[in-house]
């Protein structure tokens, strides 16, 4: 017998993914902003010894989709045996629009009235029984995050039935919704809570902009400050006293010069194993993952998880909408960018919530080129800081400069316009500790599962290349570019090769080359921008398709070479690092302020044109 299929459908940010993970036990990312789920997630659940396939779908406001993520959902409804429509009890009016559309379909339906606790505290009282009578399908009140009501949902799945409602026009649907809510919903007014006051403060420009700056500053301080502390602690308590002696023992056992020694331990420097430079699987490989990257990653994801779940990110989108518009994007695009600081892969996937192909190309390209992921950043920060903070600043200033200039140029060159933002802003909510920890654990195990093999593969390949002489050959062939333009030694080619697999290992490989500060900065910047890592490349191909990906890669190579050449020519020879960083940031800001924003006018033009044509048709 065919397995029954149950599909969760609902508006964005109503808690579908929470219901999903509660019912299947599967782990999925849940957050407090619309657009967290951008693709179908499959899971399995048992109801009375029968197995069902449960599908979690991206949120949508209606069955007439407006972006790619919503399209998935609209197509799915027809294939379901049962549709579970998750509805936000705090905003019945808006949610019922989709419910009404589902009632008009021939598919069996159950309505889950989620977040009834929050609705009550907001003074919204819903008469579930009469709602059920009016809709003609089962209505189950739940608090999904704590699991309340979900067993009733499972028990009532068999009662699901098609709504058998007549198709209505949009206006008639709203009239129907008005009639329903007047009957089942009572609202008592009460005083705004301090969370609501804070919510207001974070979208008013006068308080919102300083708040955004403070939050981002605190996040950076928290991640880098505490990260360094943990890193030192690990080094002093574990790596130096425990791990290194073990490696020396193994080194003696294998014998220097043997193949396995080269692979596992790497090169000895005057008889010493250097954790950052030896390039063995067990020395540098393990140290990069657990000694440097992991501490930063944990802290960054802790911070990000909090921002996601409390509901701040959409507010940040409101505050940065103006800025992003100058780059041909709108405020929502800041969310993929911030996610990209953790890992570019989920960031590029979340760009699916953007409406047009133009926006998606812009956002994905900017993320792939200018947003360094946490793994890469932690390596850069760890390794460049020894030359001085000013050099570190040059790298980030360059990335910002490229972000501004490239975004602006692309906005001018790409045809079409970016429609302005339209985004629901969820209320602030206290992050749920359990789901926070679950999310952190998921992301970390994802990192370990994805990154570890690639890191080890990278180190393996580079060792094999060195042994076989491929590096020597490439170094010679590419030396006009590497030496001439970038001013790096020919051997730096090897880092570029590994950079295709993993950026963090590639940055570490700059260390044994014995570079000057300026060379190191050039190398790190080129590595950050020239090509996405393998995982990002694959996801870019999936999201953009071959043609746009080629265009994007072409842009990356050009940008990265020009940025590298620029640093090579200017840094330390013409300008000291602090001045160069300031200059780049200043120029970037000036360019954004004075040159951005043709997209706005194009939107005005396009809309007035279409208005005129409808008007003409009317005559």
């Amino acid at each position, binding site marked *: 017998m065919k397995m029954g299929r149950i599909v969760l459908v609902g508006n964005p940010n109503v808690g579908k993914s929470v219901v999903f993970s509660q019912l299947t036990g599967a782990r999925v990312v849940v957050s407090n902003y619309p657009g967290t789920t951008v693709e179908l997630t499959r899971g399995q659940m048992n109801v009375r010894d029968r197995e069902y396939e449960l599908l979690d779908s991206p949120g949508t*406001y*209606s069955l*007439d989709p*407006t972006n790619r993520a919503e399209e998935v959902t609209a197509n799915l409804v027809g294939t379901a045996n049962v549709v579970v429509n998750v509805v936000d009890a*705090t*905003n019945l*009016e*808006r949610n019922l*629009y*989709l419910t009404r559309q589902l009632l008009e379909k021939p598919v069996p339906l159950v309505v889950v009235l989620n977040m009834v606790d929050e609705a009550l505290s*907001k003074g*919204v009282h819903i008469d579930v029984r009469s709602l059920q009578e009016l809709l003609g399908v089962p209505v189950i009140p739940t608090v999904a995050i704590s699991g309340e009501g979900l067993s009733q949902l499972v028990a009532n799945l068999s009662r699901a039935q098609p709504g058998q409602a007549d198709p209505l026009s*949009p*206006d008639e649907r*709203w009239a129907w919704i008005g009639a329903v809510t007047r009957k089942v919903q009572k*609202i008592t007014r009460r005083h705004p809570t301090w969370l609501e006051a804070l*919510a*207001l403060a974070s*979208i*008013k*420009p006068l308080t*919102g902009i300083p708040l955004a700056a403070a939050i981002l500053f605190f996040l950076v301080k928290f991640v880098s400050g505490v990260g360094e502390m943990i890193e030192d602690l690990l080094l002093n308590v574990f790596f130096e006293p425990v791990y290194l002696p073990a490696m020396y023992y193994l080194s003696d056992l294998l014998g220097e010069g043997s193949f396995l020694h080269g692979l596992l331990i790497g090169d000895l420097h005057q008889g010493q194993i250097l954790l950052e430079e030896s390039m063995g699987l067990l020395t540098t490989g393990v140290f990069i993952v657990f000694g440097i990257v992991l501490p930063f990653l944990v802290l960054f994801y802790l911070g990000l998880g909090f921002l996601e779940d409390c509901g701040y990110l*959409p507010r940040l*989108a*409101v*505050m940065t*909408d*103006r800025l992003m*518009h100058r780059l041909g994007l*709108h*405020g929502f695009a800041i969310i993929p960018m911030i996610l990209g600081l953790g890992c570019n892969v989920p960031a590029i996937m979340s760009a699916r919530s953007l409406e047009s192909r133009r926006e998606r190309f812009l956002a994905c390209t900017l993320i792939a080129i200018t947003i360094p992921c946490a793994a890469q950043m932690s390596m850069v920060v760890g390794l460049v800081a020894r030359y001085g903070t000013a050099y570190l600043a040059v790298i980030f200033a360059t990335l910002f400069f490229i972000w501004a200039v490239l975004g602006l140029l692309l906005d001018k060159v790409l045809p079409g316009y970016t*429609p*302005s*933002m*339209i*985004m*629901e*802003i969820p*209320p602030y909510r206290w992050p749920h500790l359990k789901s926070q920890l679950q999310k952190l654990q998921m992301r970390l195990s994802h990192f370990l599962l994805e990154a570890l093999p690639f890191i080890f593969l990278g180190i393996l390949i580079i060792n094999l290349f060195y042994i076989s002489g491929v590096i020597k050959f490439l170094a010679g062939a590419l030396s006009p570019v590497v030496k001439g333009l970038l001013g790096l030694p020919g051997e730096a080619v090897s880092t570029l090769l590994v950079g295709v697999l993993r950026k963090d290992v590639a940055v570490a490989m700059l260390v044994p080359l014995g570079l000057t500060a300026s060379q190191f900065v050039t190398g790190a910047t080129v590595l950050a921008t020239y090509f996405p890592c393998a995982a990002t490349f694959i996801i870019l191909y999936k999201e953009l398709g071959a043609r746009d990906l080629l265009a994007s890669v072409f842009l990356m190579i050009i940008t990265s070479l020009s940025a590298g050449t620029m640093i090579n020519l200017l840094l330390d020879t013409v300008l000291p690092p602090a001045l160069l960083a300031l200059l780049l940031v200043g120029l970037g800001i000036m360019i954004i302020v004075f040159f951005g924003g043709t997209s*706005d006018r194009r*939107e*005005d033009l396009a*809309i007035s044109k279409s208005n005129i044509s409808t008007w003409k048709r009317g005559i």
Partner: protein
Amino acid sequence: MTARLQSLGLYPGQKITKISSVFQKGPVVIEVNRSQVALGYGRASRIYIELVRQTGDRQDS
């Protein structure tokens, strides 16, 4: 565009309240049925409203 606004609960005749707006043609945040929606300036400027009450509720048409 109107379809997307409609599905968010913004349809002609609906009461909305402006919560805030960002200077320099920034987005406008409005409240519809107890939920807040941010609209880019381009979209917000195409919504015509009929003032119901200066201090609180407004209505679009």
